Structures are given as structure tokens and as C-alpha cells.
């Protein structure tokens, strides 16, 4: 297979340069008819325990949505389902009108424009910060392209730009493994930016960050909305309040309430779940 693929890659070498076009969503992505993400009736059980229970959720193109909920509510599991890591028992999940997320493998979902930041920061520890960003950079993911890959000036600038944005310019050539927890969070966010996805799924971005750092993250995420759709999972209510437009509350695997931060806070059921909040 690998040789066949290499041959096929050879045939379309003009694609090597196509990453120069920046925001390049998959041509198959069709959002003309409303939401960018449709999740309908998704259920996922682990040994009889329903981590997701008939969950329905829509995200609009360009929207910034916060997802909150107590521990074990199913927030991470939802992201697992959307990125192909976990297959649900029943339900539908569509990216735009045409891409059935439940049928695509992880790498195809990522290529079609869904980027993800994990709850536990995962970076490539043996690679440098710079190389981490370079790998994430939006470009053809084929073998041949990777083998012949060279950064051009424009791409170099783009990486420098992101390095400055995530305050890691000085550590650019240090292995990512030596970064602090907060810096790894930043690096993962930086990698997401390099991927330039249409939809960003961001799981607990400010865990382990100082107040100042998390303010900067808030700023960054809000600035992304509009061009990108962003779904943020976060426990830090101050952070959520500072970025949220619409908030969805997840509880026991389904959406308990949805609305603005004020509406959510005055909702009786939500207060019950968050007793003490």
C-alpha cells in the first residue's frame, strides 16, 4: 500500500505547495445550510454506564461555545466521539452537511478540519517546540510531501508568529518535554492554530495556568471565533464567564440546559447539579 500511495503522491506533486493557501477547509465541508456541527441522539455506554445519553447539540459556523458540567458528565467522551476516538452505540454526528463523523477514521476527521486540544496536554516531547508546530502546520499529510518537505520563508514566518503568540519564542529549539504544564498547554494550542482547523475542540485549556496566562488564552479563543468555530470545555467559571456567549451544561451524558451565562446561572436544575456553586 505504501508504495502505491507514494506513487499516487508522485502523480500530484503540485499539491506540495497547496498549504500556502491558508484557511483551506476541506472541499467536502458544506455549511451553507446552517450549523457546522450536528450531534443528534448520541449514546455511548461503557460497561452499562451511559457516559453519553441521547445527547443532542448543534454548533453554528463561527460560534464560540462553552461546555460545562460536573466531573464525569461526558464532556471528554463527546470530544472523543467527534474526533473518531470513540464510536458511539447510537446516534448521528455530522460535520457540515456531508461529513459523517461516525464513519471516518481519526486522521481523516483531523484533515477535514477538526482540531483538538486534549484535557491532559499531549505534545511530542522528544521534538522541539518548533518541530511540534511544524508538524502541525496545515499541509498535505502524505508520505512523499513529508519526505521532501522544506519550510519556505512564509511558513517560517507563520511559525515565528505563533511562537510569539504562545510566548515560546525563547524555547523554540528546546525539546517540548522540558516545558512546564502551562507551557505545554500553550504549545498544544499553538499546534491547533498551525493546523488551522474550521472547528476547534478545546478541553480544559487553562488548567495549570496563572490568572494572567488564562486571560491571554481567553483573548486568543475569542479572537478565533468568527473565522473558526470553537468548543471549549472548562471548569473555571470565571474563565467561562469571560469568553462565553452560549453555554451548554452537560449532566449525566446529556444537555441539561443551554443559554447565556446569566440564563444558565438562574436555571434551577443547573443550580441543583452544581450545588454549592
Amino acid at each position: 500500500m505504501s508504495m502505491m500511495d507514494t506513487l499516487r503522491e508522485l502523480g500530484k506533486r503540485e499539491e506540495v505547495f497547496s498549504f500556502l493557501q491558508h484557511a483551506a477547509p476541506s472541499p467536502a465541508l458544506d455549511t451553507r445550510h446552517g450549523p457546522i456541527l450536528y450531534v443528534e441522539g448520541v449514546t455511548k455506554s461503557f460497561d452499562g454506564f451511559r457516559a453519553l445519553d441521547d445527547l443532542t447539540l448543534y454548533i453554528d459556523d463561527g460560534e464560540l461555545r462553552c461546555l460545562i458540567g460536573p466531573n464525569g458528565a461526558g464532556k471528554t467522551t463527546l470530544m472523543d466521539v467527534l474526533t473518531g476516538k470513540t464510536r458511539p452505540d447510537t446516534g448521528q454526528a455530522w460535520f457540515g452537511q456531508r461529513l459523517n463523523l461516525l464513519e471516518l477514521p481519526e486522521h481523516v476527521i483531523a484533515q477535514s478540519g477538526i482540531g483538538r486540544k486534549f484535557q491532559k496536554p499531549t505534545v511530542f516531547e522528544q521534538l522541539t517546540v518548533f518541530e511540534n508546530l511544524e508538524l502541525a502546520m496545515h499541509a498535505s499529510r502524505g508520505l512523499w510531501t513529508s519526505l521532501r518537505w522544506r519550510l519556505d520563508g512564509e511558513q517560517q514566518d507563520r511559525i515565528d508568529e505563533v511562537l510569539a503568540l504562545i510566548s515560546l519564542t525563547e524555547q523554540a529549539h528546546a525539546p517540548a518535554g522540558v516545558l512546564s504544564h502551562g507551557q505545554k498547554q500553550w504549545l498544544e494550542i499553538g499546534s491547533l492554530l498551525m493546523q488551522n482547523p474550521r472547528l476547534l475542540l478545546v478541553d480544559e485549556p487553562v488548567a495549570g495556568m496563572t490568572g494572567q496566562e488564562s486571560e491571554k488564552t481567553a483573548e486568543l479563543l475569542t479572537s478565533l471565533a468568527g473565522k473558526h468555530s470553537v468548543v471549549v470545555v472548562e471548569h473555571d467559571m470565571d474563565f467561562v464567564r469571560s469568553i462565553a456567549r452560549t453555554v451548554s451544561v452537560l449532566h449525566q451524558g446529556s444537555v441539561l440546559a443551554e443559554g447565556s451565562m446569566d440564563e444558565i446561572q438562574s436555571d434551577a436544575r443547573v443550580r441543583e447539579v452544581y450545588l454549592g456553586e
Partner: protein
Amino acid sequence: MLMRQPFVMRLARLHSGFGWAVLLLLTALALVVVPLLNQFVTPDSALYIPDWLVTLTGRFLCLALVALALDLIWGYTGILSLGHGAFFALGGYVMGMHLTHNRMETGTIPNFIQFLGRDDWPWFWVPFQSFWFTAVMVFLVPGALALVFGFFAFRSRVRGVYFAIITQALTFASMLFFYRTETGFGGNTGLTDFRELLGFSVREADTRLVLFMLSAVAVMLSYLLCRYIVTSKLGRVLVAIRDAESRVRFTGYNPLRYKLFVWTVSAMLCGLAGALYVPQTGVINPGEMAPANSIEMAVWVALGGRGTLVGALVGAGTVNGLKTWITAAYPDLWLFVLGGLFIAVTLFLPKGLMGLRQQMAGRSKQ
């Protein structure tokens, strides 16, 4: 365009100036100095390199090539194979089949095929009469096996120890297949009694010298190929797969393709090594596929230092040098030494000999 840097420039950057100088020096040593000292120095001189040493070094070079191939998949991609002996032996058998053709008078067939009740070559033997067909098969046979095996193993996401175990099973199964007389590969005796290759006698010292030089060239070119791979972005994807494979997927790369690519390249390099090894040893038999052989190959790489390429070469040279000396001087001790070496490396040299320098530098700083 900036991107379109000439290939030569990319090649030139594979190494620092110092690295290239060392490489050039070693190549000159193998292709000029050794032949001179072997051919034109009288045997009583201290500088004389005897024929046996040339052949021994030639064989070591083939084994070093295997170590290099193993480092590509284990050191860089984090996939431990304990079955590379199978790919090595397959390359050897392919060459052995051609050499067997060469030793038979036209119209005659070897005894082990007559015993099967036939009086002509089986179909799968016939094309190996051609040297060029053989030369291609040296790569294609191990490559095809690796491709099919790797596809199923990687697609099912078999990893770590489980993968290592099934590669042991692969080499063991291949060994049993070649052991059987009915399969037509000479059973437990294997293929031997070789006479000539491309019209040159493989028993002549001169041919042996050329084979040594070819092995050196093969190691050098393969080293450059591996270096090209690991210094490219593809190489960084491999390291990323080693560190966090699922993250690689969520970044949009398909690890299956990348793993399959290096795995197959690695197997092909082993095939080349086997094909060069067999005319220098004069025999290929299923013993080469014994599971222990493949484990020993992993020890070479571990001793030299994983993920460095040079370490693999150094490790293969060191272990095989020791082995040659010890099995001659104290034949019973070798397995203990090998085991002890493995334990010592695991405990004290996690980065192998290549890491030793770093370790010493670190200690002197403290």
C-alpha cells in the same frame, strides 16, 4: 522558488562538514586502503590484511546493515521487531537460489529437488536463473512479506510487546517453512556449495574482496538513505509516532502509512544485507531464522544506542567482534556474555554506547 532547493543541497545537509569528512574517510578506508593492504603488502608485513579478515569484515558489514534497518523501525519509530532475521534470511535465500542455479550443469537439478520426485526445477525456482531477476527479488520478497504482515498488524493497531511477539512468531514460522524438505528449499541443510556469481568464483579471494567492497558501499548508501529519512519531516513524524501515536492521528497524519513505509524499507534493507552475506559465508539455512538470531539483532542496536543510526553500526560491530573472539576462545561462554551484556546495557547504558559520551560529559560537569 525557495522550496525547490536542489536535491544536492538537501543531501549536503545530511551531515555537518565533520560528519561528511568521517564518512569519506571510512569509505576511502574500505575501498582503497583495505584492498591495497590486502593485495600489495606481503603477508609477513604487520600491515598485511589477510583474506579471512576481509571476508569476516565483509560479513560484519552485512550485519551492521541489518542493525541500521532495525534502528530505523525501533529506534526512530518505537516499533521493536524481533523478526528481522526472517527478512535477512529471505534476502539470503533469494541470492542462494541464484547461486544454486549457477552451480548446476544445464539440465541437472540439485539432489534435494530430485528427492521430491521431480526431474525439473519447480516453477518458483526457474526465474532465479536470471541475475537481474534475483537482484530485484532480493528487495521485493522481504519487502512484500513485510508489507502484507505490517499492513495487518498495524491496521489492527498491534503495538509494543505484542508486536514484538508476533514478529518472533513470524520468523519462527518462516523457519519451520524452510526446514521442511517438501517446500523445496533444501530443508535443514539449506542451500550451499556455491561456486560462482556472474562468472566469478565466490571462493576466490579476489571475488571476496569485491564482495567486501560492495558490502561497504551498501552500508554507506543505506546509511545515507536512512539519514535522509530521519532528517526529513517524515522522520519527525516517525519520532512523533513513537512519542504519542494518537496525537499524530488527531493532527491528521495516518500512522499506518508511515509505519508501513519504514517497516517495508527496513525489511528491504535486511534483504539486501542477506543477499550480500550469503556469498561471503557460502551457506544459507533455516537456522538464520531462529528466533534467538533476531533477538541478538536487537541487542546490537540496544548496545550501540537506539535512534542514532551510527550507534546501530557500532553496536553490531562490537557484539559481532566479541562473538567471533569468544566463540573461538571460550565457546561455552558466549550466551552468558551476550545475556550479561544485555543486562548491563539495560541497567547502566540506557542510551547505549552512543549515550556513554553524553553520560560521561554529564558526570564530569557535576
